[in-house]
Structures are given as structure tokens and as C-alpha cells.
């Protein structure tokens, strides 16, 4: 394995993050803080506790998930789309690196950035609401798994995209709505039975539910199912990436 190549891609991508530190870290932190002010402090005080958890604290795992999902897809899709756009991808394609190494470099860097961001938001949340983490190992596990899975999804989007509009399409039209409807701000128990069934087709419900369980030991679906669904999604992304490189889809002519 060409470890030096993986390191080069990883370091290169992390340097890009460092260059854009302000927009990379400050803006998600500011927007998440606004959620806490609006839903936690302003509206949240008028909302009852959910299963014994203060509403402001209840939404923390969902908000972190929202940020992890959007940032992972955005980072990874931009990371691979930009070299395609500028043409510098020629160097990656003509280097003695395998597809696995390319993916580890790009997806690893995108996931790292998301995880750092998630932890910063967690710390920020601690300033606004009382936090409790019942299962820290699971919490970190869900964080890493989700970041990697959605960075892979972002990588796929970046390869598929033909223009900057397409790059935004899936995050805006699919991921953000599904996250909002995936129990970020509520427990799906509050939905009417019909909509509860529909909600179970939303993969993000499982991610948010499992992640929230690692904080407060409360969940919409059992944590085993959450974990299994996350792995299924990860496997789907891995298979898609494998197929992309096998066929050279949108990379090689």
C-alpha cells in the first residue's frame, strides 16, 4: 500500500481545511448556536421535557448529526469535485496509487474535519444546555461511523456531479430535509401512527436515534437496529465507490 500517497492526499486536504478555517469551523458553530438560542432558550423553555430530557438538551444529538451529515457530504464532494473541475485530477489518476488509497485519503480527510466539527459543536452546546453522555464510546463510534459513511456519500456525489449545482442538489434536496424529518427536533413517537411508519423509511431516523441513545439512553428505535442500518448504509456507499473505480465512471474516459 502506498502509505505516503495516502498521507499526501490527507495532508493536502487538511491544509485546504486549514486555509478556509473561518468558514470551515466558525460558520457551522455560529449556525448551530443560533439553533440553540431559538429552539433551546427561546422556544425550548415553553416545550415540555421529552422523556425526562430538557428540550434544549434533547436536540443536541440531532443538531450534531445534522452538521455531521451536511459537512461530511459537502467536504468530501467538494474535495474530489474540485480537482475534476480544475483538471488537477490528472495527477491522481496517473500516480501509482490504488483506488482504495485515493478514497482513504479524501474520505479520511473529510471525515476528520466533520468529527472535529462535531466535537466543537458538542462543546458549544455544553455552554447553552446541561449535557449528559451515558455511553461515550458509542457516542464516538456513531460519530466516526456517520462521518465516514456520509463522507463516502459526498465522494460519490463529487464524482457524479457535472457542475456546482449538482454538487448542491443532494445535500439541499435530500439530506437536509431528511435530517429535519428524521427526528432532529422531535421524537418520532409524537407523530401519528401512519407518519411514524413512513418515518422508519428515513435512514436518518436510525442515525439520530442511535446517536441520541448514546447521550440519554432514550431512542426511537433500538440501538442495535440503528447500528445495523448505519453499517448497511456504509456498505452501500463502499460498494458504489468500488463500482465507480472499477468502471472509471466519470473519472476515466
Amino acid at each position: 500500500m502506498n502509505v505516503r500517497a495516502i498521507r499526501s492526499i490527507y495532508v493536502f486536504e487538511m491544509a485546504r481545511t486549514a486555509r478556509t478555517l473561518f468558514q470551515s469551523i466558525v460558520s457551522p458553530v455560529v449556525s448551530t448556536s443560533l439553533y440553540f438560542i431559538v429552539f433551546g432558550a427561546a422556544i425550548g423553555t415553553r416545550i415540555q421535557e421529552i422523556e425526562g430530557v430538557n428540550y434544549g438538551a434533547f436536540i443536541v444529538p440531532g443538531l450534531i448529526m445534522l452538521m455531521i451529515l451536511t459537512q461530511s457530504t459537502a467536504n468530501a464532494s467538494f474535495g474530489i469535485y474540485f480537482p475534476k473541475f480544475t483538471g488537477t485530477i490528472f495527477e491522481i489518476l496517473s500516480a501509482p496509487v490504488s483506488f482504495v488509497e485515493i478514497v482513504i485519503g479524501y474520505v479520511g480527510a473529510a471525515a476528520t474535519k466533520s468529527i472535529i466539527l462535531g466535537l466543537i459543536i458538542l462543546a458549544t452546546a455544553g455552554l447553552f444546555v446541561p449535557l449528559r453522555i451515558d455511553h461515550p464510546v458509542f457516542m464516538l463510534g456513531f460519530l466516526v461511523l456517520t462521518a465516514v459513511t456520509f463522507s463516502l456519500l459526498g465522494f460519490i456525489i463529487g464524482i457524479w456531479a457535472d457542475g456546482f449545482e449538482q454538487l448542491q442538489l443532494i445535500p439541499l434536496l435530500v439530506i437536509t430535509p431528511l435530517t429535519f424529518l428524521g427526528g432532529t427536533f422531535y421524537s418520532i413517537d409524537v407523530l401519528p401512527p401512519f407518519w411514524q411508519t413512513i418515518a422508519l423509511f428515513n435512514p436518518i431516523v436510525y442515525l439520530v436515534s442511535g446517536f441520541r441513545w448514546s447521550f440519554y439512553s432514550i431512542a426511537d428505535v433500538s440501538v442495535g437496529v440503528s447500528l445495523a442500518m448505519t453499517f448497511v448504509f456504509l456498505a452501500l456507499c463502499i460498494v458504489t465507490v468500488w463500482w465507480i473505480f472499477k468502471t472509471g465512471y466519470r473519472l476515466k474516459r
Partner: protein
Amino acid sequence: MLRPLAPCPPSSVDTPVMPPIISISNLSKTYASGFQALKRIDLDIDKGEIFALLGPNGAGKTTLISVICGIVTPSTGTVTVGGHNILTDYRAARSLIGLVPQELHTDAFESVWATVTFSRGLFGLPADPGHIEKVLRSLSLWDKKDTKILFLSGGMKRRVLIAKALAHEPKVLFLDEPTAGVDVELRKDMWNVVRALRASGVTIILTTHYIEEAEEMADRIGVINKGEIILVERKAELMRKLGKKELTLQLHNALDAIPAELARHKLALAPGGKELTYTYNTQGERTGITALLDDLARANIRFRDIQTTQSSLEDIFVGLVRKDQ
């Protein structure tokens, strides 16, 4: 289609013939659109030579290079670099290759130093600031090493691309139109770099539109047209074989037409009637010059001056491509 000529004939039978550094056999490429960019290419590149690939726009030069470097997937055929198959043993094959693309694809927001260091790491080599410094100095980029590429001129970006390709000490260097849009001084600098690389044993394959570049630099020349290699020849041999010479006579008195006594010679009369041009093949058994001079004397045509010119590679190239159309 021509099979390329054998490498330079060995001076004695004891000299071992080196295997080619690049061997291309029966290579074709048809794009998804149905366009056939390469048609059954057979070509060997010798170790340590400078090979110039000439051809009009869209002839398949860049596709051929892209296939060898792993950017475009071949439809049929095999390519080996240093004996390594480019598909089954791509790591070993690509490690030997440095590629300078035609387009100025650069990371705008990176510094020169960072982007060149990245290239070396990507090819799996340990960091070697000394080597990077040497490369940057040889390309007059050292004082720009901390500058963002965004702020460099087109010529400087071209140098950065060459530096990136040299960062991993390749044994084979592809230069795809290296001096397009580059000023004369920089072009001469690049030629010097190329010569120095060749002296250190690097094989160089360059495509160019500047035929003077091929004429000045190349050991062998390949001409590609419509996806086919139509000729591969040592440069000197090519010039000798296809070279036509022109003999121009400046006349004392203007002629209205070519006199009947001279009709058997291939002559052209320039407008104004004061210049006669005779075209002949240097390889011919008889050049016909003596007969022409005799006939001129017989017709009592006197001339002030006489000059001969050899056709350039450019004339040869244009002639070849036109013949192929």
C-alpha cells in the same frame, strides 16, 4: 502503418540491444462517443532518447500519452513501461513516468513548494527537500517557492507543472506541448532543462506544434495523423530521405516565360521574372544540376547569384500530413 525503425544500429555485433523503455503494441482507443482516437498503434521508445510526436490538432497525440499514463483506458492492445504492463502492473509502470500535461492544470491556492512536495509524496517517495530545491532552482522557480500558484504567470505555471513531474525523479518524461504559449527565453530555458535530463538518462517524449522544437531537440520523430502513426524515423534520416533541395538563380535580365531550351527541367519562374527556382531530390542518382547549368548557358541566360535551401522538418511534416488526407 509503419513499424518504427529499430533503434540506432549497434556499432558492433557485441553491443547488446537494449529493450525499449516503452513498448506499445496494437493499441486502439475508441471513446464512448464512438470516436476512434487511436488505431492499432505500434511503437517502441528507446531508453534515453528524445522522441518527438508530431501531428495536427486532434490527431491523437494527447490520447496516446493519456493511455500510457493511465488517464485514459485503452480499448485494445498492450503498453509496457520499463517492462511493466500499464494495466496489470500499474504501480511499477507509473512510478517511472512524469507527465507534464498540455493544459495548465494547477492548484491555484497552493504554494509552489507545497504542490511540488505533494507530487513527490503521491508517487510514494520519502520527502527530499534537497531534491525539490534542485528541481525548483533548475526551473528558476526557487524565488517563487512560497508564492501561491494563482499569482504566477502562464509561463511560470508551466514551469511548476514540469517541477511537479520531476519531483519523483521519473525515468520517462512526457511533455505534452511544453512550450505552447511560452516566450522565447523560457522556451530556450526549457530546452536546456530537457537536454540536461536526457544527459542524466531520462527518456523524453514530447509533442509539439513547434516543428523547430522537434528539429532542434529530437533524436527520432513520429508523425501521427487521424489516430495512426504514419511515420517513425530518426530525425537525420528523415531529413536526408525526404529532404528536397531548392536551387534558386537570381537572373541578370528578367524573363517573360521559361525558354523552350529549359522546358525539360522542373523550373518555376517567380513573378517579376528575375528568379528561377529548381527543385531536386538530394537522394537522386543525378540531381540534374549540371544539365541545367549547361542548358542555361546554351540559352544565354546569365545569373547574378545562386543559392540552395534544404526543406525543413516543417515542410516534410506538412507534406506528409497532406498526403495522408
